[in-house]
């Protein structure tokens, strides 16, 4: 495998090449054989990293964001509660948004729907950490704390091709298209623009005190009287809580997530009031 440094944002990344930033997600995926690459293109030199005027470079590490006062509280907390200090020192904002599910079936390479197969093994199997929303086709849960925070903050992403609301980065997998993001091949997230808000916060329930993916993460941001709430760990994509919990379809062994989510949403709303 070759490792090459990208010289421009529009550098061709195709064929068997993959983009590498912090590597905290890609390297384990390569090692476990879930993705393959002939070439890795290190993009840290061409993707912005700084923070200014509500624009955050996608190559900023989580560690840089968690302690920067310019960063809204929800995003800072989401970074602080993610992973471990070592991982946050390496992992980038852009990479965090693009991480794959932690579904154990998917991670072990089972021929599940997300891998193009015909079955979601988690639905009838072991799904205690899986999705309670939009889980009919695939019950995987999206693990990004940061994505939930940005969704609540109504952030916009700037790529080398376009600008899009963070919500539009994600798509639910379908029979015809199993992808969970809308990023085109060669498209790089360069910057994240976070609009001003009055207050924001992020609460997270984990299986232990630190260094765990969210069972349920709840981000909230208030602009005037409007509170936007978004959840991590409850659907195959970061989940904007538009019509409450009406649409939830918990599975037999993950109904507890609904209780946890309700409690954390109530706390977020109280904290932002």
């Amino acid at each position: 495998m070759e490792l090459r440094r990208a010289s421009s944002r529009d550098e061709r990344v195709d064929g068997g090449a993959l983009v590498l930033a912090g590597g905290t997600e890609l390297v384990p995926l390569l090692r476990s054989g879930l993705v393959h690459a002939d070439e890795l293109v290190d993009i840290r030199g061409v993707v912005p990293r700084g923070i200014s005027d509500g624009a955050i470079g996608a190559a900023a590490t989580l560690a840089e964001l968690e302690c920067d006062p310019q960063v809204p509280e929800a995003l800072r907390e989401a970074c602080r509660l993610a992973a471990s200090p070592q991982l946050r020192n390496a992992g980038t904002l852009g990479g965090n948004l693009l991480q794959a599910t932690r579904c154990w079936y998917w991670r072990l390479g089972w021929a599940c729907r997300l891998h193009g197969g015909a079955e979601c093994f988690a639905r009838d199997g072991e799904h205690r950490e899986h999705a309670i929303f939009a889980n009919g086709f695939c019950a995987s849960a999206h693990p990004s704390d940061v994505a939930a925070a940005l969704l609540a903050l109504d952030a916009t992403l700037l790529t080398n091709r376009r600008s899009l609301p963070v919500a539009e980065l994600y798509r639910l997998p379908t029979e015809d298209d199993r992808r969970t993001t809308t990023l085109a091949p060669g498209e790089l997230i360069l910057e994240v623009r976070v609009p001003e808000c009055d207050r924001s916060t992020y609460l997270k329930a984990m299986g232990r005190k630190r260094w765990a993916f969210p069972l349920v993460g709840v981000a909230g941001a208030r602009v005037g009287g409007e509170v936007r709430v978004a959840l991590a760990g409850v659907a195959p994509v970061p989940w904007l809580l538009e019509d409450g919990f009406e649409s939830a379809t918990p599975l037999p062994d993950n109904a507890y997530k609904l209780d946890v989510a309700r409690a954390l949403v109530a706390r977020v709303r109280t904290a932002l009031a």
Partner: protein
Amino acid sequence: MARLIRTEKEVEGRYEEVWLVVEEDSLDQWPPGPREIVGRPAPRLDGHERARGEAVYTADLKLPGMLHAAMLRCPYAHARVARIDLAPALAQPGVHAAIGPGDIEQLAEECGFEGAPVAAVCADTFAQARAAVAAIDVEWEELEAVLDPHEAVARGLTIGEPRVKERGDYERGLAEADVVVEGEYRTQVVLHNPLETHQAVVRWLGDTLEVYISTQFIWGVRDEVAEKLGLPRDKVRVVCHYMGGGFGAKGGADDHTFVAAELARRTRRPVKCSLTRREENLVSGNRNATIQRLTIGARADGKLTALGGEYVNAVGWDGWSSPTEGPMNLLYACPNVRTTTVGARINQPPMKAFRAPGFVEGTFGLESLLDVLAAKLGIDPLELRRLNHADHDADQGREFSGKNLLECYRRAEPHWERRHEVRARSTAAVKRGVGMASQIWYGGGGPPSYAWVRIGSDGRATVVTAMQDIGTGTRTAMAMIAAEELGIPLEDVTVSLGDSARGPFASISAGSSTTPSMGPAVRAAAADARRQVDEIAEQLGKRGAPAREVVSVLEDAQILGKGARGPNPTGMQVLTFGVQVAEVAVDVETGEVWVERIAAVHDVGRVINPLGASSQIEGGIVQGLGHTLSEHRLHDPASGRILTQTLDTYKLPTIADVPEIVSELVDEPDSHLTNLGSKGLGEPPIVPVAAAIANAIRDATGAEVHSLPIDRAEMLRALREAEARERARETHGAAARV
């Protein structure tokens, strides 16, 4: 004089009768309390070299010409190899040899669990070996997997004979009870996860086989390898200088060692076989799941009249049925006890001993239900435990060699008293409470074990014994014992261990036995050397002079002392005891549990190194915390394949999960046990953790947890159940008033 005795040997609750040559243990115990060195805190002698990365573990070994092995493992819970062709693997770059089913007994065509070894390859690099394993052409025939332990038992798929233990008249005991409580408790599969995975490097030197291995029992590996390979035992040399943890799973040679030995034989090169973390989490052993149906009957005054337990150990494809019923049989004075224990053989990876196997699981059930009883009787849980204190072992009809559990209870009082203040800090969403649980377990060690002590004219002493320090600090403890007996400074003692070719037989490091087995032998050897120093002093006319001064005349001559572990006290039960008090906070809306403080008071006889002892207690509690709250080996319910093979899904506690830990030891020598009066402390601290936490949760919330781990789902389930119970009581109460 050497004495031949027929004695019972106990390791982790399993007894066997053996003939033993033991030497008389003629030394008097030291008086209780700290000595010059023994009983005073000492940092680990090898702390710096370990922290600096200089200590060479098996994982660090790179022998000249060494090849790396990788294994093909069965991907199904139950399958048969229909066809296998190793030729494509042999054609891969860097590959030197490949072996498959039938080449050695450890590689078989029928696989009863996911991860069962089928074939192995060795190559110049580990990456090449793995690539070659992937190239093996294999066709599987998947077979029916039995996963449900009850179904396995019903179908006669069991491991070991079912155990029935009965004393008194259980039915009559129940009839005499004023109150009877019942409960079903379940414990999960948890994994040892030592930092150093299972591994061995094997090298043939002429007709001698060298085995460098991460092991808890150098001599056990030597004998097992010699027997299976048909070698004289002294032609097998087993080495383990530093060891990265075992927790019970590294008692045997295991498949990887025999794979490495066969590949080394075929290639005439040293071969290393190291398990990856995934393999470690799949096949290296586990604490098996249990199902416990328990009944306690008591009189209104709190005296237990009947204890009953039906235990199912979900053993896995192989292993043994651990003494889950042990605490019920041993912990309390109760005239009528009946337990049945059955081991279910299911298509899951084999269990192995894991830090107090059976007792950790059994204590969770028994001590949880005892607090349910306490609440029903309106008796303080500590008082209830005192009321039913056992003054002898009614199970075996033996006296205890030493027991200070009542003293542990007394010392736990200030911690128990905190419950009022702790509860008062509850809020609407976060409830706080305090719970306790008692601990009982083995830990007396036994013979045989030997040590030599060598003193040179520079006055320095070397303890030579082929024991292993599995990371518990026994190297330091042995140096302390020798220094104490010799009357020389601790820094003047070196311990040479970890090599079966360099020193006499030494105990297994399992069953909390290293210190109580090896310590008395080391002291005896030091005393033998000391006696010789005194004789020389006498002849020099320097009676009572410091050893260093006496031996300074020796030049190249050496004082050589030898010592052996004496027998355990005849007809006595040697056990360890303790109590832990846990303080928890429960978020009743989200089901989150924080353990805020655990106070541990244990009785393990004389404490050799208080610093090492507190470290053992902390380690045991942290491991127990994982068992209680977050660790859970999961499998796919349909196929039986293991889902938690990596450390993101298998959640060990982090340092953020660790509460304040207050540890205290009674430190009273067991006057009947050896020349030291010391028992082991490796296992006792993990035994009561889960029950103490569960009882604290009950105290805080009224919720009764019945399954480990107490994850959010179980916590919220128990809270809902408690609410429903409360509602029913109110409705019932209202109805009664009408």
